[in-house]
């Protein structure tokens, strides 16, 4: 059973193992710096589907199927699927698992969904509520644009602080044993709202939440940033990543610079015109379930904090003038670690 340490962090007594993982991405993400490290790069972002929503579902299903295949499993071997995305009523994830024949829980944590799924899934495994489960998250540039912004063919300009919703999905299977990569700790973050109302600057809206969760986690674990090989946030992008480093340094006296990365900043090349970097549930999901977990297998990373960041807003709340709250959930992954 998970044990609460410090103020908010959970330490797992039987740390859940990451049995398999896979990442599937769109063409633009495939052409980015991490392109070769994903399991699947789409030939066509529409996947021959009749809508962008179905295309996103298809992408998430691909990631789930690949993860199961890599682990030598079938959906019937899972006790449950925990999945989420950005679409209204989380329909992308619901449709992706409609034929799975296993228990399904839809999650919404905006872009923090992958971390939320892993943290929640780890609690369920550690507590014995599930023996094996899969956590997944996805986003699709085209389905997100039509829901949150404008039609694809509309001629508008994006602000330099705007982020690019990644066409990507990631899935990871957690189990009680069977892998040397384990989730040792998790922390569920609180909402932090600092008055940011600009939907084109989500990194700035999420950075304070990331600062709050990361500082609490390190304090609860009584750890220094350099105790980890890598501390990675979900999708703060260039602006948010700069802000979180500054906030942690000035407010918490923590210097993360030597070990810090951000999935949103890693996903695209400068010339790919993604402005402040990637975002969307799929952004952190694909970077974790592709390059980062591969690095852990290869021994390049032994101890990792994966902190998913989400901006809690809707087009309606923005139009009604509400500020955007950020939320950040994190898990600690260790290779060969026990506690």
């Amino acid at each position, binding site marked *: 059973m998970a044990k609460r340490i410090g103020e908010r962090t959970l330490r797992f007594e039987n740390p859940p193992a990451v049995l398999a993982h896979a990442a599937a991405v769109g063409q633009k993400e495939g052409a980015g710096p991490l392109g070769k490290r994903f399991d699947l790069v789409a030939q066509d972002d529409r996947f021959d589907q009749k809508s962008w929503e179905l295309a996103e579902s298809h992408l998430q299903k691909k990631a789930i199927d690949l993860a199961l295949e890599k682990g030598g499993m079938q959906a019937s071997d899972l006790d449950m699927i925990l999945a989420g995305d950005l679409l209204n009523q989380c329909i992308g994830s619901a449709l992706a698992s409609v034929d799975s024949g296993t228990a399904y829980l839809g999650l919404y944590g905006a872009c923090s969904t992958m971390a939320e799924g892993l943290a929640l899934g780890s609690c369920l495994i550690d507590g014995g509520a599930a023996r094996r489960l899969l956590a997944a998250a996805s986003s699709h540039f085209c389905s997100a644009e039509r829901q949150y912004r404008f039609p694809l063919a509309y001629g508008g300009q994006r602000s*330099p*602080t705007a982020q690019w919703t990644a066409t990507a999905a990631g899935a990871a299977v957690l189990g009680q044993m069977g892998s040397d990569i384990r989730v040792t700790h998790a922390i569920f973050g609180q909402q932090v709202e600092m008055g940011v109302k600009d939907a084109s600057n989500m990194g*700035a809206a999420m950075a304070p939440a990331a600062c709050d969760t990361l500082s609490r986690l390190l304090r609860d674990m009584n750890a220094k940033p350099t105790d980890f090989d890598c501390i990675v946030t979900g999708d703060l992008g260039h602006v948010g990543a700069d802000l979180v480093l500054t906030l942690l340094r000035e407010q918490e006296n923590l210097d993360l610079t030597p070990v810090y990365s951000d999935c949103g900043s890693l996903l695209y090349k400068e010339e790919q015109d993604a402005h402040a970097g990637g975002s969307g549930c799929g952004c952190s999901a694909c970077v974790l379930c592709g390059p980062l977990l591969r690095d852990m297998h290869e021994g390049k990373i032994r101890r990792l904090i994966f902190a998913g960041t989400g901006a809690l807003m809707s087009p309606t709340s923005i139009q009604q003038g509400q500020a955007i709250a950020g939320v950040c959930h994190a898990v600690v992954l260790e290779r060969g670690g026990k506690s």
Partner: protein
Amino acid sequence: MNLDKEQYQQMLQQKSPNSPLWKDCLKAFLIGGLICMVGQGVSSFYKARGLSVADSAAATSITMVFIGALLTCLHLYEKIAKHAGAGTIVPITGFANAIVSPAMEFKSEGLVLGLGAKLFAIAGPVLVYGISASVIYGLILVIMQGA
């Protein structure tokens, strides 16, 4: 974290890059101007073919709307607009783009509740306030001429 919202606003403004205003204005001027020059060329062509001033204005609008719609369908308009900004929104080609792009996007929800309902999602406010302004202008004109 011991930071209030105002202090954070100041911090994020320092860290958030602004849009390159002068560069954007220059590109909007050049590309918007180019579209207007094309419109002028089309207008001159129709006049040279013998259309009256009023008819050539109508024919020019029809032609420019068609070009805007065609470029939108070919996914070229948004690529130009990315650089031009207001330069592609303000001319009548921008209006065509604002109507055709939702039509393309929302046809997946059906011809009635998708395309039909969303067709004016972007251009609607322009029509509402454009027509309202012209009604008010018309009323003022009637009152002034009556006086």
